[in-house]
Structures are given as structure tokens and as C-alpha cells.
């Protein structure tokens, strides 16, 4: 079944995107941005906002031009068969690589904090298996999971912040802009590698009821994610000050200091809980994106049989492609930001530009092309449904 047969509503898209993008960033990102911007790291998510909004806009324009089609289907039409397929494979590689990085982070966190004697491979494999089972049920189920999980995660996050309140010292955020705007912009660039993951919309938007509403919901999700990241950064920085950059997962440490008098303390199992839920969801969304992109690039009829093999490969790559946590975090801080820009912004923008120059695809407000576009959509649907 072509994924565009599946229907999710804009609200579901938003609650799927929030953990699907924000869950890994919440724990680790403040340490990475604080390494660059020190006490100004809380501004990094704000600095990343314009570029992330641009990603959403580009994805939205593409979805408006090619409704009910995923990137892998219209790229060959726009760029020509071979370059188009190549772009599809590149996008697939991005989703696959990112998914492996998520699985790695998942395994490392679980082993480092809760299960020291569990093999990382087992942790990653279990996460991957749970994600794969969910993906096989299609985007609607993922969206349902998002609806189920996101409100709980938000409540837990706020609870942890509330409990840490007594340990917070706002003056640790001063001086503001001690070294000017440059470090803030650099850390914003690093943050963009996370918030730019809205490129997921290339795969998800075709399944949403009404592209404009979906785009609007995505902007909303971006606002929520940015607000959550600012909040988490402010809390981490005001609890740990200059120590923030030294911790691997500062927000986990925040949960360890949080107390409510003598009644409630040491609530880090909650953090581990919401991390597992959110990260599995993020794993699933990206695995889904990788499978869909791969299947339609190669013109396969069915994508479901690919899910388990792809998940297994992803887990193997996650465990194999890095030797240790140090490499992983060096990669996230230094290699990842420029690298992901290629896939998150440049690739879709390129396709959109060529499509605009060639006048391809439908834009609802342009009357004459409308008929053709619907035709395109039907064609695509028929092609996938067999």
C-alpha cells in the first residue's frame, strides 16, 4: 500500500514530529551547544529557528507541487531519471545514517545510565525491533503512538524542571553574550542539525490530510521543540553552569539533583523512561522514512518487507560505525552539522528550485496546471497500490 493511502491529521503530525525530532536533542544537545557558546547556549535553538523554518517551508512547497507523492517519486521526474534516483538514494542514506546515530545514542544512554552490563548491541537491537514492529503498521500507528506518548513526555519534562527549580541559579546564565554573537551562531548551526530533521516532512506530508494544515502544524511543532530546547538548556545551564559542557547528558544529571523537599527525589528513572519512549518513536519515524525512500527510489511495489532487514542493517551499522561514545559525540558536534545540511536543506531546495524553473507540479493557486497534478497523484497512487 502506498503510504499516501494512510491518513493522519495535522495534530497527529505535530505530536509525531515533536518526539520524532526533539527526543534525542533534549538530553544531549545542551552539552554540545554549551561547549561552543557556554552560558549563552540557551539561545542556540532560537538561532537555529530561521533555517529550520526554511526546511519546513521547502518541504511544504514541494509537497504542494507534488501532492500525494514522496520525494523519491518526484525527484526523478524533476531532475531526470538518473540524477533523480541518485538524489533519492542520498536522502535514503541520510535517513539511514541518522537512524543509526539515534540507535547508537539510545544504546549508549541505556548502558551508561541504567544497564551497565547489558551489551550495547542488545539495547540497540531491542530498540530497533520495537521501532520496526511499529513501522510495519504504517504511519497511522506511528501517529497514534505520538498522540499517546507526547503529552506524557511533556508532563515528565515539566515535572523534572519543577523539581530542579530549587537547585537553579539564574545568575549562572550571565554574562550574556560574553564573547559576542559568533559562538551563539556556531551553536545554532549545531542545533540546526537536530531541528533541521524536519526534512522528514518530505516523506510524512504526503500522508497528511491537507498539506497547508500539515505545514502549519509543522511550524507549531518547531515552535514547541525550540521552546523545549530553550527550557532544557536554561535549566541545565542554571543548575550546572560551566559544568554543563562537561556532562554527556546534562538533563539526566538535572533529574538526579531534583528534589521536592524530602518527599520526592532521584527521579532519573523517569528520564530514562521518557527517553526510551521518545527515542523508540524517533527511531521508528526515521526507519519509516528510510524504508519508504529506499523502496520508491528503486521503484519497489511493497515497502513493508524491507522494514525488518533495513532495521537489522541499521542496528548493525549503529553498533559498528563508531568505536565509542567519544567518537559519537565528536561526530555530533563537528561532523554532523555541516554534513546534515546537505540532506536537510540543500537537496530538497535544489529539487524545489529545478521544479520551479521547469514549472513542474501543481500549485493550488495556479489554475491551469491543476488537472495535471491530480493526474500525477492518481498515477502515483496506482503505482504504489498494486
Amino acid at each position: 500500500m502506498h503510504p499516501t493511502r494512510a491518513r493522519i491529521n495535522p495534530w497527529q503530525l505535530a505530536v509525531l514530529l515533536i518526539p520524532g525530532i526533539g527526543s534525542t536533542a533534549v538530553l544531549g544537545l545542551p552539552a554540545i551547544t554549551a561547549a561552543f557558546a557556554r552560558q549563552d547556549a540557551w539561545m542556540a535553538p532560537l538561532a537555529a529557528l530561521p533555517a529550520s523554518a526554511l526546511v519546513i517551508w521547502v518541504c511544504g512547497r514541494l509537497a504542494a507541487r507534488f501532492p500525494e507523492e514522496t520525494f523519491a517519486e518526484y525527484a526523478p521526474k524533476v531532475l531526470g531519471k538518473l540524477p533523480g534516483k541518485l538524489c533519492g538514494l542520498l536522502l535514503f542514506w541520510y535517513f539511514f545514517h541518522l537512524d543509526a546515530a539515534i540507535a547508537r545514542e539510545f544504546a549508549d544512554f541505556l548502558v551508561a545510565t541504567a544497564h551497565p552490563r547489558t551489551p550495547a548491541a542488545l539495547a540497540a537491537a531491542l530498540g530497533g525491533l520495537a521501532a520496526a514492529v511499529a513501522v510495519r503498521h504504517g504511519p497511522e500507528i506511528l501517529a497514534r503512538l505520538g498522540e499517546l506518548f507526547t503529552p506524557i513526555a511533556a508532563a515528565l519534562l515539566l515535572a523534572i524542571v519543577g523539581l530542579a527549580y530549587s537547585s537553579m541559579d539564574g545568575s549562572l546564565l550571565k554574562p550574556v553574550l560574553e564573547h559576542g554573537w559568533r559562538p551563539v551562531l556556531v551553536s545554532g548551526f549545531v542545533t540546526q542539525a537536530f531541528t533541521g530533521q524536519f526534512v522528514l516532512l518530505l516523506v510524512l506530508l504526503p500522508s497528511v490530510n491537507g498539506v497547508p494544515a500539515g505545514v502549519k502544524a509543522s511550524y507549531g511543532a518547531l515552535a514547541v521543540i525550540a521552546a523545549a530546547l530553550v527550557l532544557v538548556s536554561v535549566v541545565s545551564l542554571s543548575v550546572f553552569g560551566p559544568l554543563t559542557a562537561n556532562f554527556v547528558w546534562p538533563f539526566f544529571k538535572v533529574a538526579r539533583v531534583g528534589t521536592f523537599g524530602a518527599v520526592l527525589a532521584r527521579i532519573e528513572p523517569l528520564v530514562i523512561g521518557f527517553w526510551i519512549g521518545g527515542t523508540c518513536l524517533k527511531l521508528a519515524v526515521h526507519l519509516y522514512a528510510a524504508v519508504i525512500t529506499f523502496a520508491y527510489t528503486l521503484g519497489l511495489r511493497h515497502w513493508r518487507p524491507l522494514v525488518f532487514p533495513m532495521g537489522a542493517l541499521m542496528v548493525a551499522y549503529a553498533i559498528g560505525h563508531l568505536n565509542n561514545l567519544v567518537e559519537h559525540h565528536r561526530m555530533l558536534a563537528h561532523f554532523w552539522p555541516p554534513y546534515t545540511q546537505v540532506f536537510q536543506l540543500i537537496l530538497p531546495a535544489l529539487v524545489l528550485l529545478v521544479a520551479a524553473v521547469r514549472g513542474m507540479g501543481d500549485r493550488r493557486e495556479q489554475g491551469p496546471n491543476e488537472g495535471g497534478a491530480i493526474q500525477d497523484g492518481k498515477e502515483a497512487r496506482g503505482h504504489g497500490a498494486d
Partner: protein
Amino acid sequence: MARTDRRLWTMVLCGLLLGAAGCYDRVELNELAIADLMAIDRTEDGRLKVSLQFIIPSELTNPGGVGAGAGLKDPFYIMEAIGETLPDAFSLLQAKLPRRLFTSHIRVVVLGEDLARAGIGPVFDSLTRIRELRISADVIVTRGEASILLRAAPRLGRLPVSALSNILNQQIVPVRSIREVAIALVSEGIDPFVPAVGLAQRIETELEAGVRAQEFELQGVGIFRGDRLVGFAPLELARGLAWLVDEAPFAAATIPWPPPGGLPSPPLRPSDLSPEEMMIQRDAPPGFPEGPGQGLLAPNKITPMVLRGQVSFHTEVKDGQVAVRVHARAVDDIVTNQAGLDLTDPAVIPPLERELARSIEQRMRAMLRLAQEELNADVFGFGELIRKNHPQLWRELRRDWHAHFRQLPVHISAEVKVRRTGLTGNPTIFRPEQLRQ
């Protein structure tokens, strides 16, 4: 096909649920040796001696007090190991333990004087890196060997660590956790300090003879420069420190009244007793005609209780020279007026408030002098304050901050409001004509 598929999946998923409980990685409570108090010392050859106090849960359930002494054992015991690093010592300790060492419940870390003077930086790497340790544990320092402190056996409470952390939580001096010390170590322009605790002098009574009892005593704070202990501030100065870091102590600060060189005291009536009468009354409170209680070392005292204290810090730059202004505001209740001040007269309150403010200022100045001139350690974080308010200026000062800190002008002022006078207005022990104005 589809049905078998689904059944198979259901079974697989149910199987996975078993793994979700994490039982393969479990450690049962009765397989743990739970440590609650850790002392770290430096041995003479520069290694670390780590002493851990372990809880014996079965002894904890013994009712304390009932039949004390007979068959009641301490619910804790102590083990030590010497290693090159903290985890090194832990693993050597583990070799002597029949249960798995569990350090998550360590609530207080005691640093020995030798170790503190040699530098605590290396130990703090382990303290923040090891997964099991909680960085919210409190840090204290002790004169001499830290492991001696583990011998305390307070009479109130079954566990020494509870007594210790309750003493700390009274906020007589500011308390510092591993996290806060680590922040001070890594920050520019601030030196760490931690409370100093020792063993109290034992009072032997006949009833208690043979009972093992040894109390903790808060003795002030240990002051560090960088990661090295450079000196101790006694309890009186530690209260000044509490003001200077805006963690006002819930403590009394007695002042003399009338203030020295201040208000004139009313003239004392000459004694009209004959020498014989005076000899007879030798055991009575001396000086009865002047007022009660003159036999005390310094009877004319007023003691306030600080209810709320708040301190604000400002920096100002004049001709490239930076100065710090510290202004403390406190709300007090009077809890003792053995000087016989007429507290029903609203007019006496303003001079009293000024005098109380002066005593707070004096405490702060004394602490400041100790830190600036004697120890040269910026435990107040004035450097950090300047960095926050004048980042440009700080770039020049940071290189040689401790030299600048020694010269830093700090203007201290205080303002006290007396709100209540305790449960009595006029002192109950004075007759009206004995009251001072």
C-alpha cells in the same frame, strides 16, 4: 498464514516483555553493601585512603533506646582501602566485601585535611564521572584525618550520616554539594569552600558510662584557593561568609548594649551595703542593686534571631578600578534582652537596628579580611560577579585575579529591621526603674 504469523508475534512480544523488567541485570537488595558515608584521605605516599561506612539494615530495625547497651549493636560498620584513584580503592574494597558495593546512597563525602591541602581536583573527576555516585551529595572537610570522623556515633538517630546531614541542613553555615564544588572548581573568579566538621568533645556522665557515643560538631568552613585547602574559618567568621554568599544563617548574633562608645549607660547607683553585708551576700547574684544577672561574663547583651536575610551585590567601575558593593538586609526578632533595654518604647528601635546592622557588617568584614588578606581566596565569587557585570574588564583581570582580589575594594553595608520582640515586651527580670532608654 496470517493467523500463525500473528500468534508467533504475540508470543515473541510477550517474551520480550520479560526482558523489559531488566531482571537479567538485577541486583537484589540483600546482595548490596549500601554505603552512606565516605571519607577520603591522602596517605603519606600520596595515595588515596577511602573509608566507607556501610549500613547494616537488619540492625536498623532494632528499636533504638529500648534496652540500649544490652545487645544493641551499631547499625553500621566501616571498611577502608588504599588505592591510586577512587574507583581503584572501591575495587579493592570490593575484594573485602561479601556483597556488591553500592555507592548511590552516599549522602556526605568527607575530605581529609591532607588531601584537601594537596588538591581535591583529581578526586572530583571521579566524583562527577562515576555513574553510581550522586552529585547532590554534600561535601565537608575535617581537620586531620577524615576517617576519624566516621567513628562518630551520635546518640540521636541510629545512623551517623543522618545526624551529619541534619546538622548541615540547619544552614548555620552554607552547605556545598559535589555539584556546587565542581562548578566553583571549573569557574573563573570563584574559589570553593565547604563546611568543616569535627568530633565534639565528649561529656561523660555516669548514666552514659560504657555507652558508645560521639557527636559531630560543625566547626566552621574550609577555604580553598583553586582546588587546595588554604585555611579554616571558625564558626563566627563562617556566619559572615554565609552573609557574603547570600545564604543568611538562621543564627543568633549577640550584640552588647549599650554599644561600646555609643549610647551612655545610666549612672549606677553606688552600693549602700556595708562590707559585712557584702561578705554575707557573696553567693547571691553580685551587683543586685544595679540590675539582675551581673555575674555573667558580659551581661548587657541583646540577641536577635535572623528571620530573613537577603544580600545584594553591585559592582561599579571608576577610572578602570572596579569596586564591589555588598548590601545586606535582614529581618530580626529579638530573642534576648538581658541588657534591660526598654523595648516598649518605639524610639529605641532605630538605634537598636543600627547597632544590629553594624554587628552584621563586622562579621562580614572579618570574613572578608580573612579571605582577602590572610588566605587570598575568592570564596565569595567576586571575580565571577565582575565577569558577569563587566566582561570586558574581566579579560584584563582574569590572568592575575588573586592579586587583584587582594586589592579589591569591597564596600559592606547592612540594614536591619526589628519586627517583633519575642513573647515579652519589657524584660521580665527588670523593674521599670532599672530599664535603659
